[in-house]
C-alpha cells in the first residue's frame, strides 16, 4: 500500500486531522460503556488488512509530520532520548526489529539490504539512504535507538531485565502523556508506575510484571491505553506542562468538536533476542471529538465512559476541567441505544 503522507502540525496552528480512512481504523479503546484499569494484555497478532494491527509496526498518513515534530522536540530537549551505557546491545536489537518490520511491510517506502553486517537502509519518505555496519555505532549519525527512533512513529522505551524486575534503562520519548523519561530513567516497573492511582492496590502491576518477565522472543503482546489531549499536541510532556497546561482552560461548548481529542496509545512489547531486554512501543493515535462522532457507536459510548469514569482516574489523566463540557457536547450523539461489545465500529 502506498501511503499519502499529510503535511500538518502538532503545535502552534495545529493543522492535524484524520482522513475518513484514518478515522475508520482508529483503535477505539473502549470495549464496553465503562472503563477501569485491568491487565488488558493480548498477543500482538497480525490483524485485518488496513487496521492498525495489520503489521507489527504501524505507519500511517501522519508519519512524515510526526517525525518532523519529533526532531523539533529533540532539538529543544535532548534529554528526551537517553540510554544507560549497558543498553547498547538492546539498542541494536531495536534497530533490527524496526528496520526489518518496516522494510518487509512497507516495501514502497522502506528497504533494507543486508550482507552480513553491512546494511543498506533506504527511507524514501524522509529521503534517507544510508549504508552502515550493524554493531558499529561509529557508522551511524546517532546511537541506534535514536537513529531508528527518529524514523519510526511511536515513542519507545527499552527495559533491561534483572533481579526479577524490569528497568527502564533507555528510551526515546517525545509524544508522552505527561510523564518524564529524564525523571524515570533507571527506575523499575513499580517505581515508574508509582503515580498511577488505584491500579497498584488492585494488583494490576504485580500481575502485569509477572507476565512480562516471562515473555518469549517471537511472541509480542500489546495493550491499549488512553487519555485526552486539548489541541492535537503530541508533546504533552511534563517538561513543557507550564506551556500547554493552559490549553485545558480553553474548552468551550462551541469548540469541543475540534479542540478535544481522544488520545490512544497502542502499546506493544517485544522480547529482544540478543539483549533479553523488552522493547515497549507507545504508538499514539489522536482523534477529534468531531471525527469520533462520525462513528455512531463511538459517539454513543464515549460519553457513557466519561460519565462513569472514577474521579481518581479522571484527575490523573487531567480531564477534570473539561470532562463535563465534553460529555455535554457528546451527549447529542447518545440516543440511549445499546452498544455492541468490542471497540470496533458496528
Amino acid at each position, binding site marked *: 500500500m502506498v501511503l499519502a503522507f499529510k503535511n500538518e502540525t502538532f503545535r502552534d496552528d495545529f493543522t492535524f486531522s484524520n482522513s475518513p480512512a484514518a478515522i475508520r481504523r482508529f483503535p477505539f479503546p473502549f470495549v464496553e460503556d465503562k472503563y477501569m484499569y485491568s491487565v488488558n494484555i493480548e498477543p500482538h497478532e497480525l490483524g485485518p488488512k488496513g487496521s492498525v494491527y495489520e503489521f507489527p509496526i504501524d505507519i500511517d498518513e501522519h508519519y512524515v509530520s510526526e517525525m518532523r515534530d519529533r526532531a523539533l522536540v529533540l532539538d529543544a530537549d535532548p534529554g528526551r532520548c537517553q540510554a544507560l551505557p549497558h543498553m547498547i546491545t538492546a539498542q541494536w536489537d531495536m534497530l533490527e526489529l524496526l528496520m526489518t518490520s518496516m522494510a518487509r511491510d512497507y516495501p514502497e517506502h522502506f528497504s533494507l539490504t543486508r550482507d552480513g553486517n553491512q546494511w543498506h537502509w533506504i527511507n524514501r519518505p524522509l529521503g534517507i539512504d544510508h549504508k552502515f555496519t550493524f554493531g558499529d555505532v561509529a557508522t551511524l549519525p546517532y546511537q541506534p535507538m535514536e537513529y531508528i527512533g527518529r524514523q519510526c512513529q511511536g515513542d519507545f522505551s527499552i527495559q533491561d531485565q534483572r533481579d526479577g524486575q524490569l528497568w527502564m534503562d533507555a528510551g526515546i520519548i517525545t509524544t508522552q502523556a505527561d510523564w518524564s523519561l529524564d525523571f524515570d530513567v*533507571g527506575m523499575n516497573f513499580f517505581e515508574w508506575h*508509582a503515580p498511577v492511582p488505584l491500579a497498584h492496590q488492585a494488583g494490576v502491576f504485580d500481575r502485569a510484571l509477572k507476565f512480562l518477565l516471562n515473555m518469549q522472543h517471537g511472541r509480542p503482546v500489546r495493550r491499549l491505553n488512553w487519555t485526552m489531549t486539548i489541541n492535537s499536541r503530541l508533546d504533552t510532556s*511534563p517538561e513543557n506542562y507550564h506551556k500547554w497546561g493552559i490549553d485545558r482552560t480553553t474548552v468551550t461548548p462551541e469548540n469541543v468538536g475540534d479542540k478535544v481529542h481522544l488520545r490512544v496509545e497502542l502499546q506493544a512489547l517485544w522480547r529482544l533476542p540478543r539483549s533479553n531486554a523488552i522493547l515497549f512501543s507507545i504508538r499514539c493515535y489522536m482523534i477529534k471529538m468531531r471525527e469520533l462522532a462520525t462513528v455512531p457507536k463511538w459517539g454513543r459510548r464515549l460519553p457513557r465512559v466519561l460519565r462513569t469514569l472514577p474521579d481518581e482516574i479522571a484527575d490523573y489523566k487531567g480531564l477534570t476541567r473539561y470532562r463535563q463540557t465534553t460529555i455535554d457536547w457528546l451527549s447529542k450523539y447518545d440516543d440511549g441505544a445499546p452498544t455492541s461489545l468490542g471497540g470496533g465500529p458496528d
Partner: protein
Amino acid sequence: MSTIKSRPIYPGLSPDPNARRNVVVCDAAGAEAVVELLARADGEFAGRTSVVLSSEGLFGKESESIVERLKPATVETTAGLVPAIDRLKEILASATMGLRLYAAGSEPLIGSVVQAGAENFIDPLSVRTEHRGSLKRRVQCVHCKGMTENVTTNPVKCAQCGLLLLVRDHYSKRLAAFQGVCINAETPDESPELKVEFQ
C-alpha cells in the same frame, strides 16, 4: 511513608558483622541512630567504623558532643551535606572490598549517599538506611531541571527558574529528588500559599 511506590524504604540501621569496614554518613538527627547502632553491635564493630558527620545547623560544642558519643568510632566532621558527600566520594574512590555503607538522617542525605554509592557500583539496596529528623525534601523542577534543597513547603518556588512547584509524591533514586511540577499552569492568576508540609 511507604505508600509512595517510587520512594525507597528506609528499614533502619543494623550492623553488618562481616564487613571489614563500615562507612556511615549522618546528620545530627541521624547520629542518634548511629549511637544506637554502635550500642547494638559487638565491641569490635566500632573499631571498623568511620563516620562522616554533616554538622549543618550545629554549633561547635554540639558537634563535639556528638563526636564524643560516637566513640570509639572515628568521626570526621564536615560543614554540611555537600562536603560530607564529597568526603564520602573520596573514601569510596579508594575503598577496597568488604565495605558496608550506612546513611542516617534526612531523606536528602540518605538519597545523596545512595546516589554516591551507586556511582561507585554499590547496589542501592545494600546501603543500610534510617530516616531521622526532618521530613524536608530535595525537589527537582521538571521544567528547568534545577534542584531546590531543604524543601519544607508545598508548593515551593523553584530556586532556579522561579516557577511555583507542586511537590509530587514521585521520587527518583538516580536524582535523589522528588518531582516538582508547575502548580498554577492551568490557573496562572492564582498563586496558592506555601503550606508547610514536610517538617
